[in-house]
């Protein structure tokens, strides 16, 4: 970055919004014991989801994007979380944490578990300050209401959500009046545009992918960040060598191998994502002379594994259909996971 750019940086072309727990960090908070352990973990003890930091670094490498993190973790963990991000070489532009102590002191117990009243105003307020032409890609997980909140956010700024419907959603999601007011105020400041390209949902709980079908093809459930990288390659956010770098990190640090990577690739193909060109670009990149690729050798195995998984499917499945999201019908997704009104996936 040149000196003028540092003084007066150019507006971001792309914004990447990330949740932290279970999206970037492998966090367990299912029990009180897990919560306590998470609260007292040091930065170096925290584990990132394989490939997440590599993906963030690659997305940032063009220098024309912003990384905005909105996490449900309490503000008291800021220093340890920031230290962890620095250890991983992640540079962020915004980092919002939840005021859980404040909520507790004010007796706002619903706000402790509720996500809609916290995340929706936070990302809308952030968007209100962004250039209208900046594209967005959002990353969340299946533990809470990320698919619901991110999709609602995307459709609100694209002018596809009615104010009356929004009012019903906020009321039924038990959002406090001041939070609802923040949502409306920020929303009104945002010029209508359609910038959200993808919403990735990391399947930390291995929720069946069909659970997210009602959100349409914009929402892509992923089992790992190699899958996100493949989709972002197809969408033009990453190049093939960058995707290979992410795969290399996953192979070297998280025990991924050619079978898990090629299965992940085929899983997306089966869900109708148009990745043939991305696969061709990857094959071309793998054939080039790059020392980094030694980690993924032997090359013929990699190429044949991808080619076999592609050929195994016969004809390519059709892409998933685009549809309007019925937010009122999906309101149970907006409730905290432990809420009795939240429908859970049937046991398998």
């Amino acid at each position, binding site marked *: 970055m040149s000196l003028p750019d540092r003084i007066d940086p150019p507006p971001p072309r792309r914004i990447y919004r990330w949740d932290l727990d279970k999206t970037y960090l492998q966090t367990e908070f299912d029990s009180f014991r897990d919560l306590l352990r998470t609260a007292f973990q040091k930065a170096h003890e925290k584990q990132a989801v394989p490939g997440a930091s590599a993906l963030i670094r690659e997305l940032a490498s063009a220098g024309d994007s912003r990384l905005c993190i909105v996490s449900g973790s309490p503000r008291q963990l800021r220093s340890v979380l920031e230290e962890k991000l620095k250890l991983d070489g992640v540079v962020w532009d915004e980092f919002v944490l939840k005021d859980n102590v404040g909520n507790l002191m004010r007796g706002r117990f619903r706000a402790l578990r509720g996500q809609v009243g916290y995340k929706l105003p936070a990302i809308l307020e952030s968007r209100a300050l962004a250039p209208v032409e900046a594209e967005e890609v959002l990353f969340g997980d299946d533990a809470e209401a990320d698919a619901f909140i991110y999709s609602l956010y995307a459709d609100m700024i694209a002018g596809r959500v009615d104010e009356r419907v929004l009012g019903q959603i906020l009321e039924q999601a038990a959002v406090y009046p001041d939070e609802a007011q923040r949502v409306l105020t920020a929303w009104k400041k945002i010029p209508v545009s359609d910038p959200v390209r993808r919403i990735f949902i990391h*399947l930390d709980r*291995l*929720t*069946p*992918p*069909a659970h997210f*079908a009602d959100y349409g093809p914009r929402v892509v459930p992923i*089992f*790992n960040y190699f*899958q996100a990288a493949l989709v972002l390659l197809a969408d033009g956010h990453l190049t093939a060598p960058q995707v290979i770098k992410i795969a290399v990190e996953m192979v070297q640090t998280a025990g*991924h*191998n050619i*079978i*898990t990577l*090629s*299965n*992940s690739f*085929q*899983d997306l193909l*089966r*869900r109708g994502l148009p990745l043939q060109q991305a696969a061709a670009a990857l094959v071309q990149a793998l054939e080039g002379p790059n020392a980094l690729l030694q980690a993924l050798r032997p090359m013929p195995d990699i190429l044949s594994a991808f080619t*076999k*998984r592609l050929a*195994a*499917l*016969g004809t390519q*499945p059709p892409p998933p259909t685009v549809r309007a999201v019925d937010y009122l019908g999906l309101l149970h997704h907006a409730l905290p996971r432990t809420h009795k009104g939240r429908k859970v*996936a049937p046991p*398998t």
Partner: protein
Amino acid sequence: MAHKPVTIAFDVMGSDHGPAEIVRGAAQLSLESPHIHALLVGDRAVIDDALAQARHSGERISVQHASTFIAMDEKPGEALAKKPDASVSVAARLVAEGEADALVSAGHTGACVLACARHFQLLPGVRRAALAAVYPTRIRRGEKEDPFSLILDVGATVEATADDLVTFAVMGAAYARIISRNEQPKVALLSNGTEPTKGPRHVVEAHARLGGLPGMRFIGNVEGVDIPKGTADVVVTDGYVGNVCLKMLEGVHETVVELAQYAHKESLRWRAGLAMLSGGIQRIKDITDWEQYGGAPVLGFDRIFIKAHGRSQARAIANAGKVAAKAAANELGKTIQQGLAR
């Protein structure tokens, strides 16, 4: 302990409960056993629909499309010739080509065995493959305390020779060593008396040869009454007798259940008695729960094939996958070959 990664090909079509149940079993396996990869062979659209609804790990499952399958009422030879792209054929081919380490199928037994025979090789020294079956017994055995014994053959070779019976004994013992972790399984021949001279000529001849086989814990002949007692860990017989025994065991189990139901309806006193015995009845039910064992192997090929029951549901399929993975990881074929070489 780190496990060697293993890929199991599942023939998804042809089960009594439909493809979704096999897919659910493989999905369950992908969550329970990180070292096992499932290769689902069948109609891709059907598999995708079922997978999308099931909790699974997408990193450990792949799909191979097969346009057709062999139905239960088809003649295996004709059907396999007419349908080269049937799921069981495609799956067996993938195992033969090394794309997967073992095959699991709940489909048509005859078609499965024939598909294996066409794509796999018989081990050196094995003239005929044997279909083994596990059956519940009173006693437990091996490191895993399995409440099951193995009986073979139960239908693949109707008329076995003495050579075949000796081969079956070696293969059964190798399987028990690997799957039940029973280092010295007790092997017996099924006959109409315990004396070495009892039984038809091929049984008498096999008895004489097994007695001198090194590394084999041969306990001689057992009678039908010894089967449910679990006197032997591996019972060796020909396919005709084995099949009759197996069906009779299944019939006894079903009759006992029916009698219990009859008793429950008949009088209050009997009902009270049954209630008092409920703990014991549950225990019997647990022991006879074939779903926990998953499937039975076809022994004698250079590749592993586990035949799951046609009525298998997700749990049984997942367990069949685990059995197949264990057999593959422990190189069952090589162990059998070593036994035959002695």
